């Protein structure tokens, strides 16, 4: 099948590739770019294991063509830690609060939580639960995920205050 050029920015890096028009974004990320952090759980937009951040929105990358992401700014789990390897507050918090078990939903869950906290830096439990309702987890029962996101919100607010003070 004929390939088309596509360009976008992923985790701050410009990407230019050729893809078949029918290639889904999740397969492009995982198979062509070897960004295997986002996972495939259902391919029908229900589970959210493939969640990435695309132009300021949480997007399920299993139900969007790569070509639809032309020119987009994308963030994946591989772009969450700092360049020096320092973990993002959400990554720290998920570990601290035991917010994961098998780890399969975790990259999508963290990306979704990140966008949620951009929109609502101090969410209530109910707002978190509603905010992550598009991401399924089969292991944790969500309770510790909610706790992790709350904890991350505190860590992130603290970091911001510190930055402002400096």
């Amino acid at each position, binding site marked *: 099948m004929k390939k088309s050029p596509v360009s976008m920015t992923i985790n701050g890096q410009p990407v230019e590739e050729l893809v078949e028009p029918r290639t889904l974004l999740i397969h492009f990320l995982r198979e062509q770019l070897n960004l295997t952090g986002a996972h*495939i759980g259902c391919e029908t937009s229900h589970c959210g294991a493939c969640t990435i951040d695309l132009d300021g929105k949480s997007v399920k990358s299993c139900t969007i063509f790569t070509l639809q992401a032309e020119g987009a700014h994308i963030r994946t789990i591989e772009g969450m830690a700092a360049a020096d390897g320092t973990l993002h507050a959400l990554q720290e918090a998920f570990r601290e609060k035991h917010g994961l078990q098998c780890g399969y939903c975790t990259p999508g869950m963290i990306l979704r939580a990140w966008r949620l906290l951009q929109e609502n830096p101090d969410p209530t439990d109910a707002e978190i639960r509603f905010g992550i309702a598009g991401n399924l987890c089969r292991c944790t029962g969500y309770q510790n995920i909610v706790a992790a996101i709350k904890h991350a919100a505190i860590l992130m607010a603290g970091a911001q205050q510190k930055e402002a003070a400096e």
Partner: protein
Amino acid sequence: MNEMSPVPESRQDREAKLEGMGCRRKRVEDVRFTQGRGNYVDDLKLPGMLFGDFHRSSYAHARIKSIDTSKARALPGVVAVLTAADLKPLKLDWMPTLAGDVQAVLAGDKVLFQNQEIAFIVATDRYIAADAADLVEVEYEELPVLVDPFKAMLPDAPILREDIADKTEGAHGQRRHPNHIFTWEIGDREATDLAFRNAAVATKHLIPYQRVHPCPLETCQSVASFDKIKGELTLWGTFQAPHVVRTVASILSSIPEHKIHVIAPDIGGGFGNKVGVYPGYVCSIVASIVTGKPVKWVEDRMENLSTTAFARDYHMTAEIAATPQGKVTGLRVHVLADHGAFDACADPSKWPAGFFNIVTGSYDFPVAHVSVDGVYTNKAPGGVAYRCSFRVTEAAYCIERAMDILAAKLGLDPAELRLRNLIKREQFPYLSALGWEYDSGDYHAALNKALDAVSYPALRAEQKAMQAAFQRGETRQLMGIGVSFFTEIVGAGPSKNCDILGIAMFDSAEIRIHPTGAVIARMGTKSQGQAHETTYAQIIASEIGIPAADIMIEEGNTDTAPYGLGTYGSRSTPTAGAATAMACRKIKAKAQMIAAHLLEVHHDDVEFDIDRFVVKGMPDRFKTMKDISWAAYHAPPPGLEPGLEAVSYYDPPNMTFPFGAYICVMDIDVDTGVCTTRRFYALDDCGTRINPMIIEGQVHGGLTEAFAIAMGQEIVYDEIGNVQGASLMDFFLPTAVETPVWETGFTTTPSPHHPIGAKGVGESPNVGGVPAFSNAVNDAFTFLGSQHIAMPHDPWRVWKAAEALGLQG
């Protein structure tokens, strides 16, 4: 050295540094998982790798008249198309199941369930494979479909398994009908019949447990790579029991076992789905042998839900005999078990109904009798233990519902009925009427603690007031209180009870301490999220006094790990956890000799203390495990081999019996059928607690799966065998919004026969949770004369149940 330290560390500090048992140690696994650096099967990419996909049956029961693969083969990018005709010369068109039956790898003469595998397409990428799967053309002759298990043994029922239609003996005894698989019977039938004849009170009810599916977030998948030059096969896959897969692969393929390398990398949840061997694994192996290239097979979600490993589908008729005072005198249960088209249940080989004979539960039944009839239907094969030990959640659900039905008949409070019949602390070890020896328990303490935690009498008073208001027409809300007391049976298991295809169900650990005091340990189990890398290290840390941070745990590579039977049925802690402790004790014995040598005293004169051996009565004279590790390689005592390592293959003397008391408080809107969990309290006793944080996580997760099963999950078939619930649109996986908030508590009754007293916990919350939810829903309607409302309790069904009671105006 250490003896000269100016300020000695406190014992508490030394202990804390180990991060051993009882510590809420943060998980080692999370470092990679939170960064998207897990290594799951579908992440694997090999040079020249091909991709396999199935063409599947449209019909539930039909004769295959012809299969035309020419169009599929002609599609550019398609490398091979396999059908039963291709597998037959290799004798791989059928494969043995764990239950002693055979299953078609690819359907040849006829199909027996919808979505059954017919052709395996191998192509250069997954898109082309999917395109080609659609181009396979199959001509069918439809046959009458058998969906209802209650009709399976009627004289005029369509015969499903023509391959074994004439066989009157199956793997588990006599077959009475071509669609009959086995009858399994246990207990004293005559004594039980007598108890019922003499009973003042008796109850009887059909308690169905619907077909569900474990549905881990990662589906089943494999990558096979056959090296023709070396004659070696490497197989990566989603295997909860990788060593068994290796043995079975060797038997099936005739490739010697040492030339098969089975690797289970990170697994995205298992819950029983990844115990069995599926046609996809076999086809990926054959395709790699045929094409000479690595072949990847990845199930999609619909294939997962409709073909690999359903759970439950047990139709249980439970009868209890009792005195008017509510003392139970006998239990009789008959089960009709729907096994689908092939008997592919993942049970220990001699246990066709798993450990269903735990059905006497936590109660002191003097006599009991159980019979189970397994039948074939035109549904997917499976019958796995979905987050439970083998058929234990079915048994727990059966007895816990039956006890509530009895309580209603006697006009007794369900908690009170349980308190009158729970096995007493002094009765342990307790031999149950159906043959298990329960190891330890303090059931009354657990139930009383749970009742106190929720202020049970106040809840009952509130419920009573609400019922009165309902009957006066002042409210359309009802309140249900579900009490469940469960006894799990896990840790399969003792070789006297359990084997899989003849292999005893022991498990293993191999621990090596290196010169610097760092440890590499490998086990025969395989984590799928249970955090073995974290918790096994805690056992070792406490046993031999080396910090958990210095211990690396490895599982899943069958070339390097010792042979073991894998992780399911909450068996890892009872078996490999025990092996870990036993291997540590062998190491410790040698370490004691080395320490005595270094300290120039007799080995009887030194004793272990947290992280060191100390000369008795002289705490300043010691050698730490780090010193000893170095000495083991540097200057071992004369006559002692250098090195410091041990292997243990642990054959447990008995199962372990975790237990718990769960209470669910439910608010039900009669007009909409919507059930809202107001409160859920779970008290678990899993013996010694290795990592409380991980235990709580396991309980949260298991309760959420119990909630899903009780309140919504069902794999539904229509009357012609079309599977109707095989997507996440239809199959209920709760989101964070529906999922209740969990309250947890515990008591600790160590197992007397386990080296560290641990019992296992992963599956208790599912086993105890399902009846707690269902009892809560049922309890809301009991005062109106309702006996049993079947699961799942989704709003529509609850509304219908209320309608049947005349509550919908």
